């Protein structure tokens, strides 16, 4: 079984968000990058578990500059066999999907996994675009993934519940919470990561369908009105008369 896992980087969840160049670009100063949690915790770890029980390979793929390599090495340390970096700025999701699709077409992968979203752009769109460009079924928000032979059984979130779906290879999935448990790399993994093969390939031409023109920081709240615990009931009046939300 050949599994491809899409890995992207994201600012550490506690990073202070700031913008530069007249609010047109994200300020990376003092920002620590981590592997996007959904890609690492769920997609990658589940791929590794499947490989460990059923055999096969797990390849990671990322679109980005050389600064992406620390992220890819982390995925290696956790257990990925090898990785691909497509060397270009990930300008918009369609561009990234076009790059990964072009690579995946050559690779005969059985399962392609992405995280359900990145925590910086929160798009939830890579998996869907990729599936369309590859003309494969796509199951988003998958919380469980099992494989028997060449059939995947997937549980996924739908509005107001969950669904259990069966689909033969190949398919694309986006991974959400529940699919696996976080794995901490061990010393052997970290040592092995150094010698695993990271292929760097050039980007292909793709349209820039969208672009971010500017950013604005969300406004915090100015004051919190404190209500005495003894008087908790008065909150309900305020929510009705003042905030007008009930």
């Amino acid at each position: 079984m050949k599994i491809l896992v899409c890995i992207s980087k994201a600012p550490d969840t506690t990073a202070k968000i700031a913008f530069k160049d007249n609010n047109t670009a994200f300020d990376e100063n003092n920002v620590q990058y981590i592997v996007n949690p959904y890609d690492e915790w769920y997609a990658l770890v589940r791929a590794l578990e499947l490989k460990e029980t059923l055999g096969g390979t797990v390849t990671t793929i990322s679109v980005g500059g050389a600064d992406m390599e620390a992220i890819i090495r982390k995925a290696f340390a956790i257990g990925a066999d090898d990785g691909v970096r497509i060397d270009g700025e990930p300008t918009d999701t369609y561009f990234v999907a076009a790059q990964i699709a072009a690579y995946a077409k050559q690779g005969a992968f059985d399962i392609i996994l992405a995280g359900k979203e990145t925590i910086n752009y929160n798009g939830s769109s890579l998996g869907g675009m990729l599936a369309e460009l590859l003309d494969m079924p796509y199951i988003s928000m998958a919380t469980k993934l099992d494989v028997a032979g060449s059939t995947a059984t997937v549980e996924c979130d739908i509005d107001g519940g969950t669904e259990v779906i069966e689909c033969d290879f190949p398919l694309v999935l986006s991974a959400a919470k529940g699919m696996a448990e976080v794995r901490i790399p061990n010393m052997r993994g970290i040592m092995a990561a150094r010698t695993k093969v990271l292929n760097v390939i050039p980007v292909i031409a793709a349209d820039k369908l969208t672009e971010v023109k500017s950013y604005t920081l969300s406004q915090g709240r100015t004051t919190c009105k404190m209500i005495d615990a003894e008087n908790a009931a008065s909150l309900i009046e305020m929510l009705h008369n003042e905030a007008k939300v009930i």
Partner: protein
Amino acid sequence: MSILVYTEVSKGKIKKASLEAVNYAAHIASKTGTSATAIIINAGETSLDDLGKAGASKVLHINNSAINTSDSQVLTRILNHVADTEGAQMVIFSNDLTAKAVAPRLAARMKAGFVPGAVDYPNIDGGSFSVNKNVFSGKAVATYQVNSAKKVISLLPNSFQVTTDGAAVAAASFDVPADLLVSRIKVKEVKRESNELSLPEAELVVSAGRGMKGPENWGMIEDLAKQLGAATACSRPVSDIGWRPHHEHVGQTGIAIRPNLYIAVGISGAIQHLAGVNGSKTIVVINKDPEAPFFKAADYGIVGDAFEVVPKLIEAVKKFKASQN
């Protein structure tokens, strides 16, 4: 030319979030001199009048039990076909879980620029089109410019008040060629949460965290929610340890919501939690620790023991509801 808007039925009614998307499409249509066409699949006997009332000039009903509506590939082919037939340059979704599977696929198929989770009306100026969406898990807003002629936009639920004061239009049935319906996925089982309000669509949410000490104490949280007509949510550790189901987990790694009212009980207000709720219009925090960081992100705060405060609130809501009748 028209703007296509994808809508769904849930529990015998058109989804509120779908009506919001129709309002949104009708608004854009009025700005661009086009019209909004709503599309709905297998609505059964549900009245489709609200779609017209929400602003659709045309309602297309595809009634065909052979459609596997769980398959994003099938829905994508259908919507692409309808967009072609109708000459639609833009397709609008509500950014729910169906849209998360279908909208990016459709965008890739149409080679349309895609903005997932738009939070306000687009700015349309001559040939340029831009719209805002939350990024960095709610810590910032980005203005996305869409460069392509074709566009797919999904609207973050609860961004606008829904209005249905227009006129109903008769639904026209629409047939799709059978070759679009080939599906490679089989649905083995569907588990629906019974009677629960859908969290992303809920206007009022009561949420609780580790301060509740254990799952056996959730009765009062559910009761408060029930009295208010609110949905329930929780912090991540609470769903991690299995006190509450995963789908209630809000925050950076859970779902992001923006109800009118978010009441947080026994939740410290970690940055990752706030990321999923700070778009709420009004935030109430109940915490026994006056230093809890959540108070800095709240509109109303009560420092006190949840086990004393929540029962008082339940009583107060009951009185309030009784006085409203």
